């Protein structure tokens, strides 16, 4: 199995499309951090204007931690889109290229080929989220320095400087876990089509619709919200709550894991019976 995964990684990482996501992050993150360095102070002032009548902000709250946390919001839509580029291509790409005919006539079971592709998708997803984390946190800290971290998403919370780094580490680990669900969804779509564009569009479509249902405060959506994976995708944000709701994070992680496994199992049931006609 290790050898199969090794060659799947070679196939994936020697393909140009694999680097689209890395390239986008490599361009957008420095641009964002530089823009924040130039005008970011004003941005924080604008965001906290209503609070300044009641609170006195002391010290450097506009720092690398604040900007790095802000960039994590790309994990809702932008990063899933970039992940689906590769995950959606894993199976459908073989059909498009006609290379199923090359690999599925070998004395190796479809189960092993499927697993090696799924592992590779996971490795890509984790490495991509890791790359985003290292680049955004590293660059933000080196250009904007560090200090106490202000979080404005649910009221106002200030975390002391020595209590932040581990939260980013765990936050990105949980983000990678959440992104595996997105990757599994794209992988599932990839199993029953013969063109990689379909899985990308389908994944993004499902993700956007589910996110809308999750965030729009309508009574109508209350009943279906617990069944959508997007309801549990905020687990990486929860690490920045104080105190950290570990129980809720654990439940969300387990549910997302269940979704990933479910998508993978459905993909497998399609792949194992698939007639290769391409």
């Amino acid at each position, binding site marked *: 199995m290790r050898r199969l995964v090794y060659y799947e990684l070679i196939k994936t990482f020697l393909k140009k499309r694999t680097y689209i996501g890395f390239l986008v992050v490599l361009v957008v993150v420095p641009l964002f951090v530089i823009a924040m360095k130039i005008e970011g102070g004003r941005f924080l002032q604008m965001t906290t204007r209503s609070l300044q009548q009641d609170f006195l902000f002391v010290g450097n709250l506009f720092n690398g931690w604040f900007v790095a946390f802000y960039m994590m919001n790309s994990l809702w839509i932008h990063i899933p889109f970039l992940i689906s580029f590769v995950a959606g291509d894993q199976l459908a790409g073989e059909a498009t290229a006609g290379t199923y005919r090359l*690999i599925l006539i070998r004395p190796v079971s479809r189960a092993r080929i499927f697993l090696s592709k799924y592992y590779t998708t996971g490795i890509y997803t984790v490495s991509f989220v890791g790359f985003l984390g290292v680049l955004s946190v590293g660059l933000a800290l080196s250009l904007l320095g560090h200090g106490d971290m202000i979080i404005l998403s649910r009221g106002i919370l200030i975390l002391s400087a020595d209590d932040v780094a581990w939260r980013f580490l765990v936050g990105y680990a949980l983000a990678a876990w959440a992104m595996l669900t997105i990757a599994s969804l794209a992988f599932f779509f990839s199993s029953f089509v013969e063109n990689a564009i379909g899985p990308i569009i389908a994944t993004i479509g499902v993700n956007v619709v589910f996110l809308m249902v999750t965030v729009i405060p309508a009574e109508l959506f209350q009943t279906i919200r617990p069944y959508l994976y997007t309801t549990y995708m905020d687990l990486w944000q929860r690490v920045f709550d104080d105190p950290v709701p570990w129980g809720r994070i654990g439940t969300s992680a387990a549910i997302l894991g269940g979704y990933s496994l479910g998508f993978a199992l459905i993909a497998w049931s399609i792949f194992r019976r698939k007639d290769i006609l391409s």
Partner: protein
Amino acid sequence: MTGDVILQTRDLGKQFKKRWAVRHLNLEVHRGDVFGFLGPNGAGKSTTIRMLLTLIKPSEGDVTLFGRSIERQREEALRAIGGIVEKPDFYLYLSAFKNLEIVGALSGGVKRTRIEEVLELVGLSQRASDSVKTYSHGMKQRLGIAQALLSDPELVILDEPTSGLDPQGMKEIRELIRHLAHDQKKTVMLSSHLLNEVEMVANRMAIINKGELITQGDVGDLLDKGEKYVIVRGRPATKLRATLKKQKCVKKVVSRGEECEVTMSFDDIPTLAEALVTSGIEVQALIPRRSLEDYFLSITENESKL
């Protein structure tokens, strides 16, 4: 000389929605055969080969390779087989060598020297490190044969290996098939829609049309079976008919305008030609024909009219 049966299909069939692409197919390939699998386009050849190589699941029947059912012992059965299905496709952004490494890994691992050996055999050693996207169709076809031979299989299944090649390329592939069969002692199953191609390389063959087996057996026996006749075209037509009827070697003459269908042995064609010329007939053509060839031409012609 052919040996025991190494590939057998029993009542093999594949249904797509309501249409049967292949039905009740019983094939036998013997060890040492160059087996021609002949049929017009859309006859079910590729569907059959896809079933043999487990790309598609049969709707009915069974395939046995080296005595093992591909349904129950798939991996063991496929271990001694290499193949190309339709046009050879590869990871275009990778080199030929890397493509073969991947195929090798899926075949249980092959040594670097074996990859070099098969690339040498198909004449691609010099281009081994170039990405496949720079290859011509003929080179891809040869690389397809290289990947089929990589694990040194006993049985090589080639689906239309000369398709899309120029005459020189077709000749090279035919020579390679002969080399595989005679020098490397491989059993080769070769699908084609060209009777003469099969006739040139195969010792046994099967003909399939509309998904059903028409006939199967030794190429020589099948081609000799049935009536042989010669189409003779010449002028003047009346003199042609009269002269033909006088010849001892001619068994039967059927006249069709300026053309006559003459039942006779092919060995006597030179004698007949000489007699016609001596009689002052302007001979335009002498075409030896066999009933099997006629049959095959009729099904392929019908196909091309559709």
